[in-house]
């Protein structure tokens, strides 16, 4: 069993008691709520005549069904079901006294983008949300877990979840990332190495030089996709990068109170002699940008590599999965993903919908034009990100290049709104899942990649190496987009 890790310390601090079923009752320090997985839980609460136990520790926004076209946000929403979901959320949070970041707040967006940027997610917390990408918040050194609706009911009613303690695997990512290689590439590499179910029974503690060198937005992208590797949570120990990110944010204390809070944050970091259940090393040195070629996030290659042959895999399950993937993606082993035709370019999501993501993509789009055959969507992860981009003129770079500049939401990551793939369209996507049917069409094809690679694919109309576009602009590609300090 692990000992002295952040996971152990945060678990112990939040453990209420051991339950008769052998699980631990854990207090949830931050409960994030959205419109899709919560109405049934509020319904169950009402059936039992229970109140929300900790409304002050609960925050809600709307993301999955949020229309991303400005004119479609008028109420009532044109989509009756979406309106019903949003109205239910508004009613539920209103009755419970839960803070809600709705369309009018200027802070609406994807839960996993909104909570970090407001300073709600902090080191040493337990974070729960009815969404598997709650692992994102582990970037701060918290334990973020995705839960089902019955567990949302638990958290609403008791402020707690019943949980099984997992094993802790330390994932050391060695090396230095080259120009044009990002956090997204790192996590795709980790999932490729460890497998889509390699993390089952574990949480991942990411560390090592390639992780420590990442800024907070990169760390959020890495932790976000922990679930794609089967890990229940993923986290990074808090350090100066973390503290500097948090300083001055809306829900973070100031002055002396900040220093006191920081002492708690520092106290939960893994000890130098912490014991792990498992330690693995992933080599990110000299990594090329990665793209998926298949139908799960572990089916990924460096852009310089050919699509593998099913026989390249030793495990039967991997071989069969490869055969299915080749069939769905309509590609052949040995083929390069470079030149794979793209119909849609999608930039956004809880993985890659932050300011730095749009800034890196803008470097590619400056003085370039989206290929005429490509439908290109830029969807900021939150209204705050949208404003940050617009203050810096990043929106104009996207619009001038031929992207549609949208309002915040989950958009076509899972297509619960008006944004979806049609037929067998191929989407170059900054999202986290390339599952069959994920983007709204059962024949649709998703190629996961970093934001810069999405921008390059939009310009070329096919999967391309973003690094070859990096120097296109008259100012070294950066254009005017970096002139405003963050």
């Amino acid at each position, binding site marked *: 069993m692990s000992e002295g890790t952040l996971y152990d310390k945060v678990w112990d601090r939040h453990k209420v008691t051991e339950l008769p079923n*052998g699980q631990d009752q854990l207090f949830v320090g931050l409960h994030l709520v959205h419109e899709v997985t919560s109405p049934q839980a509020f*319904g169950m609460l009402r059936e039992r005549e229970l109140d929300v136990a900790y409304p002050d520790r609960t925050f809600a926004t709307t993301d999955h069904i949020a229309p991303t076209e400005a004119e479609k946000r008028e109420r009532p929403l044109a989509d009756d079901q*979406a309106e019903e979901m949003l109205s239910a959320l508004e009613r539920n949070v209103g009755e419970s006294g839960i803070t809600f970041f709705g369309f009018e707040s200027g802070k609406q967006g994807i839960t996993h983008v909104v909570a970090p940027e407001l300073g709600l997610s902090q080191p040493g917390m337990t974070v729960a949300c009815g969404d598997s990408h709650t692992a994102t918040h582990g970037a701060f050194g918290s334990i973020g877990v995705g839960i*089902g609706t019955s567990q949302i009911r638990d958290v609403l009613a008791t402020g*707690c979840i019943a949980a099984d303690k997992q094993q802790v695997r330390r994932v050391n990512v060695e090396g230095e990332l080259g120009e044009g290689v990002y956090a997204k590439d790192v996590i795709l590499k980790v999932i490729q190495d460890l497998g*889509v179910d390699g993390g089952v029974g574990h949480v991942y503690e990411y560390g090592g030089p390639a992780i420590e060198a990442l800024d907070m937005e990169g760390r959020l992208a890495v932790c976000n996709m922990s679930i794609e590797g089967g890990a229940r949570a993923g986290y990074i120990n808090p350090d100066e990068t973390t503290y500097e990110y948090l300083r001055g944010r809306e829900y973070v204390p100031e002055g002396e109170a900040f220093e006191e809070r920081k002492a708690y944050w520092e106290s939960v970091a893994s000890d130098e002699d912490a014991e792990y259940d498992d330690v693995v090393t992933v080599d990110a040195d000299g990594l090329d940008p990665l793209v998926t070629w298949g139908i799960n996030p572990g089916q990924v290659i460096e852009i310089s590599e050919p699509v593998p042959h099913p026989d390249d895999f030793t495990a039967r399950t991997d071989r069969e999965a490869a055969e299915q993937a080749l069939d769905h993606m309509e590609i052949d082993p040995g083929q390069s993903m470079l030149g794979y035709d793209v119909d849609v370019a999608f930039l956004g999501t809880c993985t890659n919908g932050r300011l730095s993501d749009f800034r890196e993509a803008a470097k590619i789009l400056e003085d370039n034009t989206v290929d005429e055959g490509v439908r290109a969507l830029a969807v900021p992860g939150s209204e705050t990100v949208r404003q940050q981009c617009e203050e810096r003129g990043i929106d104009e770079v996207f619009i001038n290049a031929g992207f549609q500049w949208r309002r915040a939401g989950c958009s076509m990551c899972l297509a619960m709104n008006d944004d979806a793939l049609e037929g067998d369209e191929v989407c170059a996507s900054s999202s986290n*899942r390339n599952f069959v049917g994920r983007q709204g069409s*059962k024949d649709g094809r998703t190629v996961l990649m970093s934001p810069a690679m999405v921008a390059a694919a939009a310009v070329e109309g096919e999967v391309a190496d973003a690094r070859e576009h990096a120097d296109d602009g008259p100012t070294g590609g950066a254009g005017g987009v970096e002139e405003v300090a963050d």
Partner: protein
Amino acid sequence: MPAIDSTEDQHITGVSGTGVPIPGDDVDTDQILPAKFMKEVTFDNMADYLFYDARRDDDGAFNDHPLNRFEGASIAVVNSNFGCGSSREHAPQAMMRWGIDGVVGESYAEIFRDNCKSLGIPAVTTDHETVVRLQEWIEENPNGDIEVDVEGETVTYGDTTIDVDVDDAMREALVEGIWDTTALMYSNRSKVDETVAGLPYVEGDD
């Protein structure tokens, strides 16, 4: 006192019925319950959407998907990493409402298994070869009964009884009838207050 459900009569020592094989590794919750059908504020209609894209042809008519061929089945037999991806409880809710009372498989994604536990659906595991044999047996014996003994950790079909694994917490919860975790945890409110008192961020000045 709020109307917390009694945990009596929730003991699930075993489930039985005919089987349905749902072959494939890494079957994700987007396949089990496509996101487009989550735009309802109740789980009431979820059975209609179970494996929707896989079960229907381009005209919306049922195809030869196992769920169409084995209607009335109550034990799903699946392969490895079943239920990966999204945390949506809509997926096991859809299975339960379609008629699935228990799942036998090689392995499950954590959240999916937790969701099954919350719903009182035993999700037991065994090795690949055993799962495949059971899937083949169901194909040959569509009306054959399968008994999942949660307490004894066995599955019996035809003349065969196999050992299976049931996660400790799941077995304890189901057999003891304590899978209603809201009721369990609600009784510990004073202890929660003690835990909260030790957390600097909860009642801080921010």
